[in-house]
Structure formats: structure tokens, C-alpha cells
């Protein structure tokens, strides 16, 4: 128990304290929190239904309106509130990003742990599967999946997981390989701790930061992928997302009309969220990956 605590607690404490030491990571976490708050309060922030067709007082469709107090970012060429779409887009970004993050972290961690700790044929098999997953061309795979299996957002999550679990599993595996030889793990083994206990109590907590890094990366990937696929016209047509907004803006020629308030904000939001992921992962890498720490 004491041994476990000595392994776990400092890691968690360092994880929690890290953002205070690294301004980038701090910025990243602030951005994430902001978007999360927006997503959770979307209905309050933008009470208008993002797909509702709006009419002017004269009974005409409120199309192509410029930014105003009523519609902070104006309306689309078919009379939808752009601001409402942007705000509600955070919900879908959060949903896609978080589900991808959780699954990638989970699969990557479990495979990495098992592979690294047990070695042998399990290791060989899992790593071969990882190799195969890495030889799938990513975006084409998502397109084929969406185009033929159905335009559902869950397919995007599936594809992002398929792409990212191998790299996270590999890195975690190599970390486990070094941890396995550490003195305190050795000590636990000598005192007769069970395999599972060693694995989950002594080793797993130490690789948590790495799982976290890959989760942060997965959020960005999932959101960009959703946007690209929607842009190509294979997105889930019922889902209001930033990618759908950009696709709509592009095909409705917001560029020709100079409706910057339409096609700039979703792009900037994507950049912000993805950059936040980079910031966080870099912060944790620099603090926790010994290779980079020494600089």
C-alpha cells in the first residue's frame, strides 16, 4: 500500500501541478475549459435552433444578413443563425473529441500495458496488429467508411481510434518496458504482489500522463477529421458541426460574398481546440518524457 502510494501520488500531483509550471499547457487547459463550458451551456448561450429557418418581420427569409445585435455573426444564405451554429458546433466537437479521446486512451493504455508487461507472443501479436492498423491510409479509410457504411459520426470516432491506438500503445509499451525493471516494481514482485496488482497499482499510474497526452492529441484529430469529411460531403447530415458550417459556407459561396463572419469563426475554433491539444500534450511530454526533460 505504501509502495503503491509512493508510486501513484507524486505522479498525480505532478500531473495536476504541471499546468502551473508550463504556460502553454495552462493556456491549453483554459481553452478546453472554455469550450467545454460553451458546449454545456449552448442552449442558454444560443437559444435559437441552429437549423431553424429564420424570417424577417416582413415575412421574408432572413438570408445573408450581416452581423447584428440579433444575429451576432449574421445569417446563412438559407436564413440560419450562424452564431447559433457556431455555439452548437462546440457540442458536436466535444462529443466527437471526447469519445475519441477516451477510447484511444483506453485502448492504447490497455494494449500498451499488456503488451509491455507480459511480452512474448501476446506482445508480438498485438504489435503486428498495430502495424497493420498503421498501414491503413487514414482519411481515405474514413471516407470509404462514411460513404459506404453510413454517414454517422460514430464512424469518424471509430476511424480516429483505429489510427491513433497503435502509436499510443507503442509508446506506452516502451515506457512499461522500462518501468518493469524499476526497483519498486521489483520490490513489489519480491513481496509477492499479484500480476494484476503490479500492473494496475504499480505501473499503470505512471503511464497515465502518456495516456493523457494521446487523449489530448485524439481530440484534435477527431475534430479535424470530422471537419474534413463533412467538407467533402460525407458528414452526418443531421449533425451541426464546424465542418458542416465550412462545407455549407464553401458551397454557398460565402467566399465570393465576402461573408467572413461565416467562414472564419468555425476555422478559428478548430485551430484553437487543436492547438490547445498540442499545448497540453507538449507540456506533459516535456515534464514526463525523460528523453525531452533533460534539455
Amino acid at each position, binding site marked *: 500500500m505504501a509502495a503503491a502510494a509512493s508510486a501513484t501520488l507524486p505522479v498525480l500531483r505532478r500531473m495536476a501541478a504541471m499546468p502551473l509550471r508550463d504556460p502553454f499547457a495552462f493556456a491549453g487547459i483554459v481553452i478546453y475549459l472554455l469550450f467545454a463550458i460553451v458546449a454545456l451551456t449552448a442552449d442558454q448561450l444560443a437559444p435559437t435552433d441552429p437549423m431553424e429557418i429564420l424570417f424577417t418581420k416582413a415575412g421574408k427569409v432572413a438570408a445573408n444578413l450581416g452581423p447584428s445585435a440579433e444575429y451576432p455573426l449574421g445569417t446563412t444564405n438559407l436564413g440560419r443563425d450562424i452564431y447559433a451554429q457556431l455555439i452548437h458546433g462546440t457540442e458536436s466537437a466535444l462529443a466527437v473529441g471526447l469519445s475519441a479521446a477516451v477510447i484511444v486512451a483506453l485502448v492504447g493504455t490497455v494494449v500498451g500495458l499488456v503488451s509491455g508487461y507480459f511480452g512474448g507472443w501476446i506482445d508480438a501479436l498485438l504489435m503486428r496488429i498495430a502495424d497493420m492498423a498503421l*498501414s491503413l491510409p487514414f482519411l*481515405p479509410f474514413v471516407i*470509404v467508411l462514411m460513404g459506404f457504411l453510413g454517414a454517422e459520426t460514430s464512424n469518424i470516432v471509430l476511424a480516429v481510434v483505429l489510427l491513433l491506438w497503435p502509436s499510443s500503445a507503442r509508446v506506452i509499451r516502451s515506457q512499461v518496458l522500462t518501468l518493469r525493471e524499476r526497483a519498486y516494481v521489483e520490490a513489489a514482485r519480491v513481496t509477492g504482489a499479484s500480476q494484476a496488482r503490479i500492473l494496475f497499482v504499480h505501473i499503470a499510474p505512471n503511464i497515465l500522463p502518456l495516456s493523457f497526452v494521446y487523449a489530448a492529441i485524439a481530440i484534435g484529430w477527431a475534430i479535424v477529421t470530422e471537419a*474534413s469529411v463533412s467538407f467533402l460531403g460525407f458528414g452526418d447530415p443531421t449533425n451541426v458541426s464546424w465542418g458542416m458550417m465550412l462545407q455549407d459556407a464553401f458551397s454557398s459561396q460565402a*467566399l465570393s460574398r465576402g461573408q467572413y463572419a461565416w467562414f472564419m469563426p468555425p*476555422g478559428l475554433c478548430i485551430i484553437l481546440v487543436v492547438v490547445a491539444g498540442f499545448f497540453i500534450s507538449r507540456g506533459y511530454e516535456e515534464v514526463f518524457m525523460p528523453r525531452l526533460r533533460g534539455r
Partner: protein
Amino acid sequence: MKQVLERFAHNALALLAVITILFFMFRLMPGTPLAAFINDNLNADQQQAMLAQFGLDKPIWQQYFIYLGNLAQGEMGLSFFQRREVTAILLEVLPNSIILTLSSLIIAYIFGVLAGAWLAWKRGTWIERAAVPVVLATRAAPEFWIGMVLLAFLSFNLGWFPSGGASSPGLAYTSNWQRIFSLDYVQHLALPVLTLALYLQGLPLLLMRSNMLEVMHEEFVTMARMKGFSEWRIVISHAARNALLPVATAFALGVGLSMGGNVVIETVFSWPGIGRMLVQAVSVHDYPLAQGAFLMIAAVLAVTNFAADLLYMVLDPRVSHGRRS
């Protein structure tokens, strides 16, 4: 040599797995592939004949081996809509994709390596602090969005670049080589390459920078410093050479990776490449063509993965020494 063979077998096996996954994914999809045709001129018999023509009336495992056999001979069947050999269609557009990918990667890596080394040298200054987030932002922006914005400003508004396509209307060339080296082609290539390069330069830049920072702490650099070499000379002659190795590997991997990622860029710029062919085939449900385009991209990926493995073996002394001893 044994290692080379091992890596080759590895990648070949992975490709075979991709082919298999793809094949069954396409065949086990709900509905008949013929749903792609809305053609009331076909009666039930004719539909059956059509199924037979595309070999879709046989048991699925049999179809699989027929497919593998044909693939081994470079045959990928007929496109549902174009009624032409998929292989021929794809080979026509493949060069455009390779040129787009290679030229943007080369530009991105030359820029990235130089800028990364420079930033490492400038470590701790405000330039570095400002540059890193900016570079991260270029990597975070969706490619198609950068493309959209560049196209709107540089082409539609300022008229500096053509709006799309690979050559001006009606220009004839005696050979594909002549076309590729023509000024016209380069003009059309410029904007998509720029966009792609802007997106791709982040990786080599950051990689180079962190490798440099790492290498500069190693013994031989410290030695050089003690010998009194100037800082810049150390960077150039010692650190950079060693830091380049992982970047070279990343380049090889990058060819395969960005071939797949080009799908969106090719669509934004109406570039006649394999990615756009894939998008088009998927959207009309032209199964053989979509499958072929996907496989060709996967094959390029497998080849470049193999190349990266080899490069890694040759370049990284730690790997080869470690194995040898």
C-alpha cells in the same frame, strides 16, 4: 539483409491485411452494389447478367481469391460507371498526386529543417517563444480551410494564380513529361503545393528543433564547444547532421501519409489526382474504382513505410549496432 527481408515481409503482410479488410468491407455492406445504378432499363435478368459480369454472383470466398489473383496481375476490374479498367484510370491520375505530394513535401522539409535548426539556435529568445505556437497553429488548421482562404484571396481576388485544374484549357503536350515540366503546369501546381507545404512544414520544423536541442547536449557537441568552435559552426557541422536522421525518416513516412491526406486539397483545387478520384468514386458508389483508388494509396503507403524502415536501419547507428551485437 535478413533484416531487410523481414521488414519487407512485414509491410507486405500489412498490405495484404489492408486488402483483405477492404475487400470484405466492400462486399459485406448492406444492399447490393448494384444499387448504385438507378436504371429502369435493366430487368431482373439483365441485373443478374450484370452481377455475373462483375463476378458478384459467386460465393464470397471465391470472389476474394479471384480478386487477389487479378490484383496480382495488376487488374482491379472495370469501373461501374466509366466501364474502363480501374488500373488504367488510376495510372492516369497517379503522377499528378505524386508530383503534388513530393513537391510540397520537399518544400516543407527544406523550410522546416532550416527554420527548425534556426529556432533551436535561437532557443530561449522571444522569437522562439512566438514562433512555436504559430507553427503549431499551422499544423492545427484544417488543410481545406487554409486552401479555401488562400484560393479566395490569392486567386479569386488578386488573380495571381489559376483557380484550379492542372493545366490551361486545351493545351496539348506530346508527352506527360513535357507537360509536367511546362511553365503552365507549374503555375497551376503552385497554390496547392503552397497550401500543402504550409500544413506540412510544422512536423519537420518541430522535429528538427527538438532533435537539435537534444543533440546539442550530447558529448560530441560539448567537446566541440570546449574546442572553441563557434556556436553556429557547431550547429551546422555537428548537431544538424545528427538531428537530421529522424527527419529523413519522417520524410519517407510523410510521402505515404500525405498521399492519403491530399484528398481534401485535391478537391479544393480541382487537382486531377487520385484523392479526388477516390472521393468521386465513393460519392457515386463506384465500388471497383473506389476500392482501386484506396488500394493504390495503401500501396504507396506500404512502399514508403518500407523505405522509412530501410532508411532508419541505414541511418540510425543505434538500431544496426544494437542488432548486430
